[in-house]
């Protein structure tokens, strides 16, 4: 007997819904094993990591705060990956958005008007779009692999930010710390409730708008055809270069918005480290959300929980908060593995049937 994969006649709708849940379940089981290996009672560990952060108001607020950048970036990436356009440099677009948006305040530190924030947000979006346009144009014009170029640009912009906050943009009154002036007053995003800021509204709006665009508008159809059936797209007159540029501008702009909202709320200034890897974790958000903007909304909350759980595990269990990254990586593996069940099913093959299918030697 041998276990083989067999292509399903059509996509399994049931599995498409079940696979993310199955992946989460498997991640939780793996988590229990990791806790046990570390000498922690598994149920206690799971409770601290996955349940307790959901039981208190302040931690629920933190969940939304952490989900905000993840959703903003993740919905854009979901559109990209649907089009088979591989932007994995969202972390860089996030950072460049934060830099360009923060530039407004470094140049005009005393500017306090309702327009300040609007300009910051616009420049943040613009920064993300500019930085996303680079790999897109290199792909279109020179056919340079966008996966590699967009990722390389992440390192470049992180060095740029590091240089800015240690050099020309350093706060003169900042006791030589590598940071810009602290943003205050109207330069910060308004709070909605507790620690939840206006960025959460942007995230929900982005998910809703993109869900409409992808599901109901020609542009969304175009993106899907270019991604799933490149030949059909050519016959339909859908241009792949135009789609590549559209995807990068969209996801870059959203990542830039996430960057500036993050520094204009949670961080409050520009400093060398402004993100715990949101741009990379958002890749997992896009996949866990089945490349669907509304799915990414839910997935963003799930991955925000993984960050919170990591912090809780550090405080209550004495584990490193790096365990969050491990859970996130494992989760993506399980998602991809479970997605196999949408297109394929397993079948036991009897030895005689197997012999018939072996290639002739």
């Amino acid at each position, binding site marked *: 007997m041998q276990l083989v994969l067999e292509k399903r006649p059509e996509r399994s709708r049931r599995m498409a819904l079940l696979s993310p849940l199955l992946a989460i379940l498997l991640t939780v089981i793996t988590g229990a094993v990791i806790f046990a290996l570390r000498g922690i009672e598994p149920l206690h560990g799971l409770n601290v990591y996955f349940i307790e952060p959901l039981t208190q108001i302040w931690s629920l607020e933190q969940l939304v705060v952490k989900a905000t950048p993840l959703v903003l970036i993740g919905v854009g990436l979901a559109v990209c990956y649907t089009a088979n356009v591989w932007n994995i440099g969202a972390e860089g677009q996030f950072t460049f958005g934060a830099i360009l948006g923060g530039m407004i305040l470094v140049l005009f530190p005393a500017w306090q008007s309702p327009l300040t924030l609007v300009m910051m947000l616009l420049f943040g979006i613009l920064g993300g779009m500019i930085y996303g346009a680079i790999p897109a144009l290199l792909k279109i014009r020179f056919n340079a692999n966008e996966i590699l170029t967009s990722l390389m640009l992440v390192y470049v912009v992180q060095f740029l930010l590091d240089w800015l906050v*240690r050099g020309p943009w350093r706060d003169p009154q900042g006791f030589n710390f590598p940071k810009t002036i602290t943003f205050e007053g109207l330069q910060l995003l308004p709070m909605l409730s507790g620690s939840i800021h206006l960025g959460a509204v942007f995230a929900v709006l982005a998910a809703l708008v993109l869900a409409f665009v992808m599901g109901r508008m020609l542009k969304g159809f175009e993106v899907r055809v270019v991604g799933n059936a490149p030949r059909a797209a050519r016959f339909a007159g859908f241009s792949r270069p135009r789609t590549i540029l559209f995807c990068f501008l969209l996801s870059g702009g959203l990542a830039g918005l996430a960057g500036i909202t993050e520094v204009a709320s949670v961080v409050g200034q520009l400093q060398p480290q402004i993100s715990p890897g949101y741009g990379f974790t958002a890749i997992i958000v896009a996949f866990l959300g089945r490349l669907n903007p509304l799915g990414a909304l839910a997935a963003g909350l799930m991955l925000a929980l993984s960050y919170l759980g990591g912090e809780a595990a550090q405080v209550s269990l004495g584990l490193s908060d790096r365990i969050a*990254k*491990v859970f996130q990586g494992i989760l993506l593996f399980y998602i991809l593995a479970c997605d196999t069940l949408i297109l394929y099913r397993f079948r036991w093959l009897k030895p005689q049937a197997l012999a018939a299918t072996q290639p002739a030697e």
Partner: protein
Amino acid sequence: MDVWFAVFLTIVTAATPLLLAATGELVVERSGVLNLGVEGMMVMGAVAGFGAAFLSGNPYLGVIAAIFAGMAMALLFGFLTLSLVTNQVATGLSLTLLGLGLSGLLGESFVGEPGVRLPKWLGIDMLIPLSFILTAVVAFVLFRTKAGLIIRAVGDSHSSAHALGYRVIWVRYGCVLFGGACAGLAGGYLSLVYTPQWVENMTAGRGWIALALVVFASWLPWRVAIGAYLFGAISILSFVVQTRGWSIPPQFLNSLPYLGTILALVVISASRRLTRGNAPASLGQPFVPDR
């Protein structure tokens, strides 16, 4: 004389991990599989190599542990992409994310500990000549032996190779594991030779540069070696700047390898003759045998 030797040494030490990892990935891609998880396999090799050498006191055990860590990660990638037919791009990405996370967790107690340096043989690190032997062997096997012909056939047209009776999946498993071993060894070089200590994310994008090198080399082993040394040469720039006392921000110098990678990709990719000629035709395509 001493200065030139130091310059040469800087280039070689910077080039060797790139050469090791890129040569492994070249074989993987020649068999038609795109493993974007080089960075993840490499960083796991680095932490395993450091850990084994630190805990046992034996740097050779470190080298072996690095190789096996890379292969273990590669096996995970192979199981998903080859047996479960998952998307290779996404799976490679998740391998990198998992490797970076897991190595950070495993290496937490190693931070700040003094490492064990791999001893030199006859005044040079043995992994340096080994990287050239590896390149020569890969070049020979790929283009002068039947095994190499099979690997390239599988990479260029998996359906034809399958129809001829070759076990496409098993050939690919072998190549993926070889790539993992090379990436793990490259990581081990970083934590046992380059800077004998453990620093989180110490691969610093070298796995991605290795991936770019394969494209830059248009899938030819000796060009990988040339490319790796060109990239190694970028690292002497900071050396030059230091000795001349020029005031260039270190952040700018540090970003040069990444900018150089983008430039190299653009120059090579713009030439269709170079990229289309050697790129394995089935690269990144999933394969499920017909039944």
